[in-house]
């Protein structure tokens, strides 16, 4: 599952680059994440808790920065984990690319997410919508946190939440609705590709 998102922050590219590689600071932007161990500057251990309707899963796993291309301001981060009760696996390749923009820096986050197990089995594709919400929240949290980080402030209290509750459900439902309307009134090419047709 490929998910792409863009956001802008009012800060120079070099500063945002440093933030991005400050994994302990950046990781909590993804709702439900906690970093449990720093192995070295490229390797970390952590947990992500996701609650989706009847399913609550806690993924524990490893995060690794596998590529730091300072010249192009591109970083690739691998994350892989398994539910602590054995009901699923998740793996993600996150590619972050920074570019100069009028107001500061444009951040592009491309995520290739593979989820298997209980979380992926419900609601005829609900996981896509939930993941989209998580990525949106990740981007929003990062956009909020970078200025604070620049000012040398701590992360805002209460920002580190678990990915749960009514909020995600509602936003995911809205995403699903939007997708339906988009399918009806938008182009049909994406869906045909998704159905495995040439």
């Amino acid at each position, binding site marked *: *599952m490929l998910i792409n998102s863009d956001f802008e922050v009012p800060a120079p590219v070099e500063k945002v680059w440093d933030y991005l590689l400050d994994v302990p600071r950046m990781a909590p932007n993804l709702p439900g994440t906690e970093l449990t161990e720093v192995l070295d500057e490229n390797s970390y251990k952590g947990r992500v808790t996701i609650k989706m309707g009847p399913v609550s899963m806690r993924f524990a796993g490893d995060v690794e920065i596998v590529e730091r291309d300072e010249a192009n301001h591109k970083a690739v981060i691998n994350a892989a984990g*398994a*539910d602590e*009760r*054995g*009901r*699923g*696996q998740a*793996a993600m390749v996150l590619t972050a690319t920074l570019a100069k923009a009028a107001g500061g820096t444009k951040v592009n986050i491309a995520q290739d997410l*593979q*989820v*298997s*197990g*209980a979380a*992926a*089995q*419900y*609601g*005829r*594709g609900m996981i896509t919508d939930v993941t989209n919400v998580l990525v949106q929240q990740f981007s929003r949290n990062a956009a909020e946190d970078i200025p604070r980080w620049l000012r040398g402030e701590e992360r805002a209290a209460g920002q580190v939440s678990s990915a749960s509750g009514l909020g995600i459900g509602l936003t995911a439902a809205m995403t699903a609705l939007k997708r*339906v309307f988009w*399918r*009806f009134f938008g182009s*049909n090419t994406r*869906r*045909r*590709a*998704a*159905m*495995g*047709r040439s």
Partner: protein
Amino acid sequence: RVEDNRFIRGKGNYTDDIVLPGMLHMEILRSPVAHARIKSIDTSKAWEIPGVRLVLTGEMAAQRNLAWMPTLSYDTQAVLATDKVRFQGQEIAVVVADDPYIAKDGCEAIDVEYEPLPAIVNPEQSLAPGAPLIRDDKEGQTDNVCYQWEVGDKAATDRAFEQADVVSRLKLHYPRSHPSPIECCGSIANFDPATQKLTVYMTTQAPHIIRAAVALVAELPEHMIRIISPDIGGGFGNKVPVYPGYVCSILCSILLGKPVKWIEDKFGNLISTGFARDMYFDGELALRADGKILAARFHADTDQGAFFSDAQPSKFKIGLVHSAFACYDIPVGHITARGAYTNKAPGGVAYRCSFRVTEAMYFQERMIAAAAADLGLDPAEFRRRNLVRDDQFPYRTPFGFLTDSGQYHKCLDIGLAAIGYEQFLTDKAEAAKRGRRLGLGISTMTEPLGAGNSREYDILGIKMFDSAELRVHPTGKAILRTGAKTQGQGHETTWAQIVAHELGIPAADVMVEEGDTDTAPFGMGTYASRSTPVAGAAVAMVARKIRAKARKLAAHLLEVSEEDVEWELGRFYVRSAPDRGVTIQECAMAAYGNMPDGMEPGLENNAYYDPPNLTWPFACYIATVEVDPETGVWDVLRFVAVDDCGVRINPMIVEGQIMGGLTEAYAMSNMQFITFDEEGNCVGSNYMDYLLPTAWETPGFELHEVVTPCPHHPIGAKGVGECAAVGGPAAYVNAVLDALSDTGVRNIDMPLLPDRVWEAINTRADISGAPPVRAD
């Protein structure tokens, strides 16, 4: 139905109702991933949980030579995974504990480390060059081809196609569905270390086959195994195979010396047990301009899942898919078929049909509709020109079947008259002027039932006969046991009626008992609509044997010679003096107290019936629908069913079977499928996603009948359990596509969800339902 007395009172006795002293509970740990190498399994935390008695892994099962088991299709299947997991939901370990909740906690405490492998979710992906090998456990297996098979005359078929005026082509996918009985699978294995006897209560449609399989797989002596199949809450084919859960409960009971109960949950049932269908067809008809079909050919790719464990007893790798087009007079044909391993649950079962017949008939009737459209011919008239005529029986199909009886044109005409065909065509044209989309779909088909004859059908080498044992007690009451096993078909009512019909003993005086291998005669179980064609025939035969002995007793009591005794229902009388007679009950008493010199006492017997041929019921189903072009939602306006299932023993049960089948057909065409995402996640392993129709959305059905007795069955019955589920789906789908005929859309894969229909209307393109694959 006599059985309803206990069912509607909630007094049925199902596997989960049975509680044995000292019984422990087993739960299964299933794989969350579709394809991965198992790097390690750590069970230490599970063993630490108080109340956990046993944690069984594949490695431990392997020490007893039970990590793998043979399948009914001569492949092997993992009982507990040792090397790799090959589908999501695969069994990895089991935990036995004092209660099921502790056992579940034990499963969650097992730590399995997986090394993910690419997941394969459809045959195209599986059979592509360079696809990852799923069955690396099989020596000599270098690709994901499970089998290849063909039948027919290729050269003659190719020649016929060269001479055709029109060649009509259709590609479609029959989606993966699941029989989804409300009661899931389960077993209670009780190995008694003192007597060395193993008793297993289990949800099985075929207890004797299970006993033979357990004897062969677990290497236990067959006489020390007793399989009891109590009341079953629906089977539909799902309870024919041997599942790892059964095997594990038996192994755990042997290891612990205690009864071990395993009751599957709904998720486990939908994700891991026998699926149905999942076939891809690509076929053609060679047509003459006047509407005559010259030849048929098609290729079928089947998604077999991770192991080839189709529960089918024919000698044909792909079951009876070559029964396609059997009701049409087509001179030649050619079929090729291929099975593909994928990372999906194994165990293709014949969901309410005889081994791939539903798929065959669906493709046939969709192809017939497409061909009629290509020719510009009325679909009813096109069928009329090609259906086998009454004077052509016995008729040999191009693929080798022998159909023996039927009145196909009569059934079609009754159906058309009932639906008001001409009037509907007028109404449809009128409605079209106002932008409304009405459609009519026909499905006519004859299907092979009642597996089978011993030339072509066996399970583990045992031929597909069935049996009945009848004991008439001194007072004229009786107990009947058969080798079949009812799962809601109403055997207790129907068998008693056959005995009543043959012997004149009131049906209420006949107790019917099935499902206990220690008491029932050896039989092959209930599926493929074989109960009435095979076991029902045995019931009639054994009753006739009893009557023959009763005749001798009557002659003795009436003091005349046997030739002078005449029979009327329930009574023998002297031909020259009809008022001098004895009842069957008086004969029964005499069998125990007043038999003639030299006659063995008692009035009991058994019969084994090996059918000379399959039975061939015929059906004509006609649906009319209205499609809402704005939303893609379609409603059934009317549904007419004309069934010729031969002689009907109990019309109420027959009609119940037809309505049930049409409901399941509606579900398949409208809402139901088990699909997968590109990671091999099963989307459809719960009732939130796998939809069952309720009384709310199910349309009403208008039933009609034609009776053409089966020429080789003792009472002329042909079987009926599956016809409607087999022939029904094409009627609904043909109707919806008829409503879309101006769009040029040839096919929408089932289920015809509103978004698929809407998309077809708006894009004027066919809609495929094949699972998506990763683009990278």
